[in-house]
């Protein structure tokens, strides 16, 4: 079943076309990697889905419901949670209250009643934040900030989780840990769309990858197929590297 259906998504910023006529579906329970060189439009696509700004044209349906142009808080409450590429903690609130505050707002009442609620304590335990319970948002290290971003997103009881470069700048051990988390969340029934630059990790964890280049979708398929796609190699490495 399609959880997210995007049709003809175009986003212009003045003369710059950040996204051009992008179509895609995300099926319930999938892990989809979103790849592309810098400036390809990946984060713009996330912003359009999460409601940060509306698309210039095109429509987005979530679980069969039109969500194009809705405000971000509404989209979050309907069940799409995101993390930020640059973590945005509440800097003078401690970890516990960072998560608690989000859990107070992030989920519609009727939806909350239907789902078993993730408790703040449980989420902190799960993401290794229990020891940092009293640390302020501004005092956390990079990996802890990423964990806090994911933990906050999860207490909104999302059906679709948008992860924006959660592995960037992490060491191999931490990267593996994030891969584990992503797989575990899928087992718990959460669909995941992740932007990632770490090719190996993305290829390893995704069921399917989509590649954006200059605002257009140039590939969509199984990781091993997309890897061999000439256009993808060209987008990343340049024309001379495309094998004959």
């Amino acid at each position, binding site marked *: 079943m399609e959880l997210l259906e995007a049709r003809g998504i175009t986003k212009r910023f003045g003369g710059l076309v950040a996204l051009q006529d992008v179509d895609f579906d995300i099926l319930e329970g999938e892990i989809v990697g979103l790849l592309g060189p810098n400036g390809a439009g990946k984060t713009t696509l996330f912003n359009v889905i*999460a*409601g*940060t700004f509306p698309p210039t044209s095109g429509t987005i349906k979530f679980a069969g419901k039109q969500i194009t142009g809705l*405000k*971000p*808080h509404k989209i*979050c*409450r309907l069940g799409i*949670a*995101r993390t*930020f590429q640059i973590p*945005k*903690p*509440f*800097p*003078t*609130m*401690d970890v*516990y*209250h960072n998560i*608690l*505050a*989000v859990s*107070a*707002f*992030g*989920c519609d009442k009727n939806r909350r009643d239907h789902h078993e609620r993730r408790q703040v304590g449980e989420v902190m335990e799960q993401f290794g934040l229990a020891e940092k319970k009293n640390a302020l*948002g501004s005092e956390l290290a990079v990996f802890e900030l990423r964990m806090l971003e994911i933990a*906050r*997103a999860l207490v*909104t009881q999302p059906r679709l989780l948008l992860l924006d470069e959660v592995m960037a700048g992490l060491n191999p051990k931490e990267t593996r840990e994030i891969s584990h988390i992503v797989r575990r969340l899928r087992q718990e029934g959460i669909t995941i769309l992740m932007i990632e630059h770490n090719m190996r990790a993305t290829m390893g964890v995704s069921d399917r990858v989509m590649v954006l280049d200059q605002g257009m979708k140039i590939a969509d398929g199984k990781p091993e197929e997309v890897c061999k796609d000439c256009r993808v190699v060209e987008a990343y490495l340049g024309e001379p590297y495309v094998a004959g």
Partner: protein
Amino acid sequence: MNRIRLTGIGKYSPFGAFVALAFVPSFAGDYYTALLTSVLCWIGLAVSWHFFSGTTKYVSLGTAAFFGIGVYITAIFGMSLPFPVVLLIAAAISFVFAAGVGVVALRLKGIYFAILTFGLAELLSNAILFWENQVSGTRGRFVVSIDVYYPILGITFILLVVILALRRTKLGLGLRMIGESEEAARHFGVSTTLYKVLGFATSSMFMGLLGAAFAPRWGYIDSSMAFNPLYSFMPAIMTLFGGAGWIIGPIVGAVVISLLQEYLLTTFKDYFMIILGGILVIVILALPQGMTGKLLTRRPLFVKRAKRGV
């Protein structure tokens, strides 16, 4: 959140303080009663300002606009309607007016919001002056004569109780999240527009209420008194001076600065602004988090960390 709560007997001390304050006029002279009235009014304005601007970091310099609206409501209706009714009208009009302004102004951030709100007070002041000059042909108004000590004491007390309670509601939490990171707040389910407008209107409502209660002290008012820019700047300065982290900050700031101002004004009549300005600069340089900033560090001296929970 570093919420600090008084424990044991300390919990009731604020109530005790207000009961004690109710008896002040019976033994203190007129001068001290009048001074205390001003101090209480400043506390009310600073705490109201802090509730919205201190929490969300949308710095408003429009306090005088709402205070002045209150003053004029009393000047207009004070003679014909019972005082409590006048106060209710002032609260309602300030709330509605601030909500209307907020819908437009709260799209702006930082310095732009500050300038727009400052301009609002000036606009009202000059609009009323224009009206008086050109239309009604009057200058200023007489205000009904009422003892303002108890109204101001009562309103400040209620305002403190209501604002402390509101800070623990979803409105208070949402405003806090907006101040911490508006981008994160709106992506995690906070309807930022609604919360900002409600917060701004609530804070302005108390400012209008204080203006309405304070007006009879003057006997006669005009637009330059009612919308004096001092009312816009002082609550912001008091909050910064006292520390914006916790509600005790604006209270301490209001008490210290208003007493200091009074002392300097009576002692060094001509130089008081220079001295006051100098002291403010030194304190803000020495204590960037305000006088109570240190209280918010990990281990406060005489208070316990609050129990967890919203």
